[in-house]
C-alpha cells in the first residue's frame, strides 16, 4: 500500500512538473511573440492601423504559442499513446482544434497582409524599384503622386493592380501565387512587365466619379469609358505610372 501511495505521489509530482514547465514556456513565448505581432502592426502610421489585422495577428500568436506548448507537453508526457481522456483531450486540442483554428484565423491575415506594400516589396529582386519609386518624394510618377498625397490611403500597389470586387481579389491572389513560384525558382524575366494590358477599369473605378479628373480628361473621357482609348496611351511615356531605374538584379 505504501508502494502504491509513493507511486501515485511520484506520478502526481511528474504531472505537476509537466504542467509547470508548459506554463513557463507559454508565458515566455507570449512575452516574445506578442510584441512581435504588435510591432508588425505599427509599421504604418498610427492612424492607419487596421483593427481586424491587429486583433487577428494577436489571436494567431496566442493560438500558435498555446499550440506549441500543448503539443510539446503531449509529446513529452504521453509520447504518442492516447488512452485516458486527459491524453485524448490534449491530443485533440493540439493536433486538431488548434491547427484548424490557426488555419482559419490565418486565412484572414493572409488575405490582409498580401495586399500591403511591404509584402509586394518583399520580392525585392523584382519589385524593389517599383516600391522605391512609389515612396520617392521627388518622383512625379502616378504611383508616387497617389502615395505621397494619400489619394490611396493604404495598400497602394494592390489598389491599382486589382480589379474591382471578389473576382478581382481572387484573380490577384491567383496571379500572386504564380509570381511567388517564379520568384523563388528564379524563373522570372526582367524587366518586369504586366502580363496583360493595364485595364482602364482599374483607373476608372476611382477616377470615373471624380470631378477633378473629368475636368482634366473632358476631351477623351468618352473614349476611355468605351475602351476605344486606354489610360496607358498617355501615361506610359509622359506622366508615367512608374519611373523605374534600370538597375534591377538579373536572375541566374
Amino acid at each position: 500500500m505504501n508502494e502504491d501511495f509513493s507511486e501515485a505521489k511520484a506520478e502526481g509530482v511528474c504531472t505537476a512538473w509537466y504542467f509547470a514547465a508548459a506554463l513557463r514556456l507559454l508565458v515566455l513565448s507570449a512575452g516574445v511573440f506578442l510584441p512581435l505581432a504588435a510591432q508588425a502592426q505599427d509599421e504604418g502610421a498610427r492612424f492607419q492601423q487596421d483593427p481586424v489585422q491587429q486583433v487577428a495577428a494577436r489571436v494567431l500568436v496566442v493560438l500558435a504559442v498555446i499550440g506549441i506548448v500543448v503539443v510539446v507537453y503531449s509529446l513529452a508526457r504521453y509520447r504518442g499513446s492516447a488512452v485516458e481522456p486527459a491524453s485524448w483531450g490534449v491530443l485533440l486540442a493540439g493536433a486538431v482544434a488548434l491547427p484548424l483554428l490557426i488555419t482559419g484565423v490565418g486565412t484572414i491575415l493572409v488575405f490582409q497582409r498580401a495586399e500591403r506594400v511591404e509584402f509586394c516589396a518583399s520580392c525585392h529582386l523584382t519589385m524593389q524599384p517599383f516600391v522605391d519609386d512609389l515612396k520617392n518624394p521627388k518622383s512625379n510618377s502616378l504611383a508616387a503622386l497617389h502615395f505621397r498625397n494619400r489619394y490611396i490611403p493604404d495598400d497602394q500597389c494592390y489598389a491599382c493592380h486589382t480589379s474591382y470586387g471578389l473576382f478581382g481579389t481572387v484573380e490577384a491572389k491567383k496571379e500572386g501565387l504564380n509570381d511567388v513560384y517564379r520568384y523563388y525558382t528564379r524563373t522570372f524575366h526582367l524587366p518586369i512587365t504586366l502580363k496583360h494590358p493595364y485595364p482602364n477599369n482599374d483607373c476608372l473605378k476611382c477616377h470615373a466619379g471624380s470631378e477633378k479628373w473629368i475636368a482634366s480628361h473632358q476631351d477623351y473621357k468618352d473614349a476611355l469609358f468605351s475602351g476605344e482609348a486606354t489610360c496607358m496611351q498617355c501615361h506610359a511615356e509622359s506622366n508615367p505610372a512608374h519611373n523605374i531605374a534600370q538597375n534591377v538584379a538579373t536572375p541566374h
Partner: protein
Amino acid sequence: MTPTVTRDVTPKPFKLNSATTRTLLIVAQLLALVVFILALEFLRRTTGGTLFLFSTIGPVLALIAVAAVLGVATYRFLRRHSLFEVEDIEPGQVIFRQGEEGDCAYFIHDGQFAVIREENGTETVIARLSTGQYFGEMALIGNAARNATVRAVTPARVAILGKQNFLTMLSLMPRTQEDIMQTVNARAMRKAKK
C-alpha cells in the same frame, strides 16, 4: 466430375496495431507543430515565401494531422464498441503483444492459441487455449496493458467483443461475470506462482 476449388474471399478486417497508432499520433502532432511554427514565421516576417508556406502548405499539413488523429480515434472507437465480429486467424499470427493497450476480448470458436510471457528478452509459453475458451479479458477488467502476447498455433476463428460491450455484458450478466472473474483470478494466481 471436376473437383471445384473454393477460396475464401472474405475481406480481411482492417487492423492497426498499437505501434502504428502511436506513430500516427506522433506524426500528427509533429505536423501540427510545423503548422504553428509556419504561422509564427509568417507573422514575424510576411514575405511571399512565408505567406505561400503558411497559406498553402500549412492547411495541407493541418488536414493530414486532423485526418490521422480522427482516423485513429474512429478506429479505436469502433474497436471498443465492436460486437462479436468473427475473424479468421492464420497460424503464427499475433493477436496482441504484451504491453499493448487492451481494447477487446477474444472468444475462441476454433483453433489453438499460445499465451506467451516475455521477460528479460526470453519468451515463455505460459498457457495454451483452445475452442470454447477466451483471452484478453484481464486487460479490460483491470484497465491495464496486455500482460502477455497471444499467438495462433493453428488456423483459428475468434469472435471479438469490444471493451465497452464486454464490460456491459459483465454488468448485465452476473453469472457470466462470476465465471470470468474466476478465470481471471485463476490466471492471476498462476502468474503469481511463476
